[in-house]
């Protein structure tokens, strides 16, 4: 087992002691969400600004079923993953042909469309009221209403997701997606159906988003309207960028920093989005590459400072 995995495991164990269970749980949920996005953003080079479409759609569908037909947890998760994947396939079908700004705007606009559908379809989604009353059915005598039990469940799923994502990025698919990001014309010429692969990445990302969406709904017992809104889409992009989109682990660090930061700042000052905005601007102007790169830079700076001393006779 590598050092990174040990670090992640340590974080999983320590986090619930450091912050409240709900926030700790939400951090890992967000990390799952971020993992899905990063397959698109970091590996395929597609900046999707509409990830909450899949997150929200999965949360609504699974939430609805949890509420009305007493399905078990794993079925709910499976349904959420499926809904995430299918909605991603739909949106992806429209979007993968486009690139650059067009892609961003399309994912954004389609996200808005789903948002307004959820907003208006009050009989099912509850509109602005959200869809409350979602339970966490017990599984094998484990009562997930206990926050710690649920935390352990989510953390386990997160580790599973991370492992799956690691396998995916280390598989041929991961390499092919990177190749597409680097040079899609050449990838096509070498023999890959580029739109098809982009769609596949989209669907996998959607499945991860769907999983995160269901876990989120069960965490708070409600699917709030904002779960499908563009602010949510933005947040996951920003969390990933703040963490560093170049690395598999970037979104994990990002979601930790993002959620922890916005929660603690919001208690301090009511105009906290202003600070968040300032933070974004600072990251962009001075720390492009996010935490992962800032960390790497810090280390190389330290190494450089130490090196001369070591060489000196």
């Amino acid at each position, binding site marked *: 087992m590598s050092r990174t995995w040990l670090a992640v495991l340590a974080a999983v164990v320590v986090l619930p002691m450091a912050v409240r269970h709900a926030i700790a749980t939400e951090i890992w949920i967000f990390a799952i969400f971020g993992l899905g996005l990063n397959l698109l953003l970091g590996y395929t080079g597609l*900046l999707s600004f509409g990830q909450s479409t899949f997150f929200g759609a999965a949360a609504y569908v699974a939430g609805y079923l949890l509420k009305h037909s007493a399905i078990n947890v794993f079925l709910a998760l499976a349904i959420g993953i499926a809904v995430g994947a299918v909605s991603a396939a739909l949106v992806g079908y429209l979007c993968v042909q486009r690139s650059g*700004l067009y892609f961003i*705007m*399309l994912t954004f606009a389609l996200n808005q*469309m789903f948002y307004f559908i959820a907003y208006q379809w009050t009989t099912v989604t509850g509109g602005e009221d959200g869809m409350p009353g979602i339970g966490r059915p017990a599984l094998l005598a484990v009562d997930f209403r206990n926050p710690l039990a649920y935390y352990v469940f989510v953390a386990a799923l997160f580790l599973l997701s991370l492992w799956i994502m690691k396998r995916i990025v280390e598989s041929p698919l991961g390499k092919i997606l990177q190749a597409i990001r680097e040079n899609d014309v050449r990838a096509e010429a070498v023999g890959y159906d580029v739109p098809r692969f982009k769609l596949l990445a989209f669907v996998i990302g959607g499945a991860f988003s769907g999983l995160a969406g269901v876990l989120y709904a069960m965490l708070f017992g409600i699917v709030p309207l904002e779960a499908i809104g563009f602010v949510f889409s933005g947040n996951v992009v920003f969390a990933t960028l703040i963490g560093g989109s170049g690395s598999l682990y970037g979104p994990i660090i990002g979601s930790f920093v993002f959620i922890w930061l916005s929660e603690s700042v919001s208690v301090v000052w009511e105009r906290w989005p202003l600070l968040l905005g300032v933070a974004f*601007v600072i990251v*962009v102007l001075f720390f*492009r590459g996010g935490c992962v790169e800032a960390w790497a830079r810090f280390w190389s700076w330290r190494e450089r400072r130490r090196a001369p001393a070591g060489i000196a006779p």
Partner: protein
Amino acid sequence: MLYALMGLGLSLITGVLNIPNFAHGALFAVGAYFLFSAIHAVGNFWLALVLAPVGVALLGLVIEYAGIRPLYAAGHDYQLLFTFGLSLILGEGIIVVWGPIGFSQLPPSILRGGLDLGFIFYPKYRLFVMVMAGLLVLATWLFLEKTRYGAIMRAGIENKEMVSLLGIDVHRLFTAAFALGAYLAGIAGALTAPIRGLSPSMGVDMLGIAFVVVALGGLGNLLGAIAAGLIIGVAQAVVALYWTEASVAVIFAVMAAILLVRPQGLFGIR
């Protein structure tokens, strides 16, 4: 027409500068608030209507110079992060400066009341806005299509290096394009204020629509943005009459439908 105006400004910035400007809605709101303050400062609607968008353009100038210029070479992700952060700052800034509660701004007295057009009673101010927006769109279009500057900007869309080889300062050109885009957002906001009033959230409300207009019109296609703005305005008005619940979602549905048929947008070439 207002949609067209918004779309035009955004299309200019996204198309010419290749920057996803999520702060465009915030600039729109700032335009409205500048108008409000300017009226209180100079006591004259018309003068304020001239001053407010110029103020927004100046703000745009500063933003471009200080923030956007270093980002042309960075990826869209960072540009997006920046403009989104900017929109948060501007939006919250409005609350800090003008307070969280909205205002009403009456039209100038000669434009109050309405005209009976026989089949419909229509407020004079709305007619004025339509004419103004039409004129502005026309002026912008003429400026970009018929003058040397317009040609330069369109050339800049295609090939920055070549433009600078002709002795033209591309940076200044882009600053000007951004300022012009900000100006259009600002004047759209100022013109809207007497209709929809002012509130800190007005920018966010408008942003989604502006993006749809640009996507539909084709990136950087100014004429397309105008046409898309009109189409969306009409579609929304018609749907609101028959199926009110859908009047917002329809904008996006129309977009999705058109993009299915024409993936490059209505008039897109790329």
